[in-house]
């Protein structure tokens, strides 16, 4: 399974860490589109953006010493971190050995200038169409469409296809979920422990997790990854509610477009014309991932409120009240949220805007059997706690927290390891000799000096047997 890119630095967008692992040639090609330059710029943090602006309008290179004198002592560490990021993205490449002259990558400089000043016939921001006279497409409708698409994927994951109401996603999505390890099993995939963690993250992060996975399989599908990123960046700079023409799209764009329609990033009404949805236009809305995710989650709530009268719209989206007696009240009627809660709560009643239930040993056992950990349950409860709960300290009743952890431990009361028990050593020197060898292969599971016994893994056993046989042959001998 391909790794979903390097570990992101705190506060850094996961796409940036992914891009940092790409070759210089790919990145230079990526920067040949003005929209890509602008979108990338929006993903960077404030300091990195300021550094780029400082360099952008300089024609020649600048000595790094000149830049250094601007940096205060306190600013040294953030400055260096920013310069490292920019260098890894090949935006501001590190100076060649023996030189200290810095300048923006020529391709980035040229095209970012173009993005800011306009002009050129690159068409990388999309080609807007005349207003569709048939009408019927507005921002609300697009939000509803995107929320439906996205939630149906999540709903499918959480119900693992057992819920008839959750429509089965397309093959492409199923493959992606399988490849990313979020669901496992052929034919009837089931959600994995990673899948549950995925459900707990913000919609923005979920989207990018899947898109990065999508990028990582572009190679085996013979799709040019750079073009895919350019296309995503292009969508992210488009305007919500505006229709765009697809006539200027390359073949790669067209094939990627089909997939993005499934994810709900793009809505297609007329042939050769598309509408980007909010999922697409918030893809790169700045380093402030919180604003973008709240935009999408508030939009997800509109989706819910349209399927009924939801009162989810409390600040921060928290809707769960948990009492010390393990009873849980969830102010929601979003089928997805109910399905997620149902993973670890035994639900008892359902009202127009509320579901009630309690956390029981059985319900937690069921979750644990599905590979969900106690910490994941608790962190979900914390993230989605109702504002009323925030008056409590600690947020989640300590009895419930401890009990969930205890139930988890109870499940792991017995550990099982296969292997071989070595025993009946006549002399302690023999015992120590063989044990020493087993230790060198770090395969000892258990040992007892007094009883002269130790337990090794199957691999360790084979190695020990060879060791003993060889010693016998060499006449080293054992007592």
């Amino acid at each position, binding site marked *: 399974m391909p790794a979903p890119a390097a570990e992101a630095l705190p506060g850094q967008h996961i796409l940036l860490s992914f891009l940092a692992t790409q070759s210089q040639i790919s990145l230079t090609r990526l920067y040949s589109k003005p929209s890509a330059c602008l979108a990338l710029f929006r993903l960077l943090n404030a300091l990195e953006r300021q550094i780029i602006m400082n360099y952008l309008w300089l024609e020649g290179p600048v000595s790094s010493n000149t830049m250094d004198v601007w940096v205060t002592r306190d600013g040294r560490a953030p400055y260096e971190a920013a310069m490292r990021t920019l260098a890894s993205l090949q935006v501001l490449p590190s100076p060649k050995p023996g030189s200290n002259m810095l300048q923006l990558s020529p391709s980035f400089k040229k095209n970012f200038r173009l993005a800011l000043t306009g002009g050129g016939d690159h068409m990388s921001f999309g080609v807007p169409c005349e207003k569709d006279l048939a009408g019927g497409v507005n921002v609300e409708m697009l939000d509803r469409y995107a929320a439906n698409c996205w939630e149906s994927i999540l709903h499918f994951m959480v119900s693992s296809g057992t819920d008839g109401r959750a429509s089965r996603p397309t093959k492409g999505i199923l493959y992606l979920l399988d490849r990313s390890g979020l669901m496992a099993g052929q034919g009837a995939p089931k959600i994995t422990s990673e899948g549950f963690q995925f459900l707990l993250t913000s919609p923005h992060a979920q989207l990018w997790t899947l898109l990065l996975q999508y990028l990582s399989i572009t190679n085996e599908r013979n799709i040019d990854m750079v073009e895919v990123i350019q296309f995503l960046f292009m969508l992210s700079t488009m305007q919500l509610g505006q229709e765009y023409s697809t006539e200027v799209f390359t073949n790669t764009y067209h094939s990627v477009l089909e997939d993005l329609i499934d994810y709900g990033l793009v809505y297609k009404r007329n042939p050769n014309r598309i509408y980007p949805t909010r999922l697409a236009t918030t893809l790169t809305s700045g380093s402030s991932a919180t604003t973008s995710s709240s935009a999408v989650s508030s939009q997800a709530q509109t989706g819910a409120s349209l399927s009924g009268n939801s009162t989810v719209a409390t600040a921060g989206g928290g809707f769960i009240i948990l009492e010390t007696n*393990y009873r849980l009240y969830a102010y929601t009627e979003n089928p997805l949220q109910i399905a997620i809660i149902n993973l670890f709560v*035994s639900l008892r009643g359902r009202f127009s805007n509320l579901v009630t239930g*309690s956390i*029981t*040993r*059985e319900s937690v056992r069921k979750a644990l059997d599905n590979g969900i950990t106690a910490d994941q349950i608790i962190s979900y409860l914390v993230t989605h706690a109702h504002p009323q709960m925030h008056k409590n300290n600690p947020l989640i009743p300590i009895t419930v927290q401890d009990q969930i952890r205890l139930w988890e431990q*109870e499940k792991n*009361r*017995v*550990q*099982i*390891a*296969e*292997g*071989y*028990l*070595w*025993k*009946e*050593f*006549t002399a302690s020197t*023999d015992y120590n000799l*063989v044990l020493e060898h087993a230790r060198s292969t770090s395969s000892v*599971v*258990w040992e*007892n000096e007094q*009883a002269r*016994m130790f*337990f090794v893994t199957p691999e360790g*056993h084979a190695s*020990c*047997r060879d060791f*003993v046989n060889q010693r016998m042959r060499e006449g080293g001998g*054992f007592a």
Partner: protein
Amino acid sequence: MRAIKGVLLTCDSAVKQILLTLNEKEAFIVEDLDETHVIIAPDKVERVRQALASELEKNAFSLEANVP
């Protein structure tokens, strides 16, 4: 010196006592190592696991039945 194939069970001492009781009905312990470790026969692992689970389950009481 000899080596025997087996499965090492690591457990707490309470479970160990239950295992010893179960062992009297049907022997599966190959070697009783110490307070928290026993070796059992590889072909009995699944049986022991189930027996143990149902034994532990007897000591769990649920609120469910009492709630109106």
